[in-house]
């Protein structure tokens, strides 16, 4: 499931992962490390909600 950052609107797509943050494609949002942050604005995981 995709998740969207409440602060900046950036969307986390598990199919793409987050190359900048070292997150491989296919990683579910729930499996992201606790210290992972939004690559655009730096918001923490709890600022994301299901898209």
């Amino acid at each position: 499931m995709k998740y969207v950052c409440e602060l900046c609107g950036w969307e986390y797509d598990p199919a793409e992962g987050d190359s900048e943050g070292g997150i491989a494609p296919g990683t579910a949002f729930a499996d992201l490390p606790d210290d992972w942050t939004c690559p655009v604005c730096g918001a923490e995981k709890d600022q994301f909600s299901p898209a």
Partner: protein
Amino acid sequence: MRPVEIAPNVFEVGVRDWNIRDFHGYSTPAGTTYNAFLIRGETNVLIDTVKAEFTEELLSNIRAVMDPKDIDIVVSNHTEMDHSGGLPRIMAAVGQDKPLYCSKMGAKNLARHFRENWNLKEVSSSEEISIGSGRTLMFIETRMLHWPDSMFTYLKEDGILFSSDAFGQHYAGSEIFDDQMDMSELLFHAKKYYANILLPFSALIAKLLKAVGEMGLKLNMVCPDHGIIWRKDPGVILDAYDRWSRQETQNKAVVIYDTMWHSTEMMADAIVGGLVEAGVEQVRPISVRRSHRSDIMTEIMDAKVVMVGSPTLNNQIFPALMDVLTYMKGLKPQGKIAAAFGSYGWSGEAVKLLNAELSAMGFELPEEGIRIQYVPERDQLTLCHGLGLRMGLRAQGREV
């Protein structure tokens, strides 16, 4: 300055901050402007305000066109205080119950700046309102360009985009329009603005430019909240943003360094020689304590090679250099190759620490860098020259 009618019944009513030289840590040798726009018609609209201390001048400009009480709606494209600071006095003059249009994040952020009971109207992207006189305003959400609240307001029939901070420049002149300016000077100020404010959001800007292209908006005029209005050919600044948002680099190298007793400086000079010999067209040696971080970033934005030199001071990187590196890291320049160098006395940690900083920024580090104890001798400077030469060749995709 008096208001200027930039299109029929559309007035620029903002102010000039001629003598500001430091804009929250960004050097502004040409000052800046806080642009605000007044549309006169069946519904009178004010778009954005100015820094709080200039509000009286904004009010006086508005009065030259109409009584502020006749303004029917106010639009806040961006919550940052150089554009919203005037809102409390403006709303008091316009009428506290008048609608204040902003994005969803704008409503949240305005509430955290001003403890006022304003009649906030949250708008979503592509939402339109008719303002009579055959005119329509459309709002375009531009989150993180450059704050979560940022949006554009588009005057549809006239093809005028009020673009908030996007496409702006810190430049205060008596000129209003791009056709009154020397284009290379104007683009320099626009580039510096992009490098220091918008660079970290480049991926979003690329997306936005694509989306605006697909919407097929006609753009007769682009009116940013700082500096000069683009009307002669708004395509010039759109093309520049396209290039900058893709972080295109040139055959260019920046050598930034600090020095205590000229040793790191000697190394920098030798590296510069190597870069030039490699055929790098633009080589920019910059001593960080004699240059402003915002000018350094403007040079770095389109450079392929970033060479960083620091002496080791009490086991650390030199502090003036850390200032620049911290600033640079936040602005997220991409697609660079880098190498570190520096002189040291006894322990010499700076090069290793610089390498860690540069790789944390995602720069490619093809070499370990060079550190030299105390004063370099001729052979050691030859090594520095060689480092510059190899980095310069790599920058051009040539064999090392």
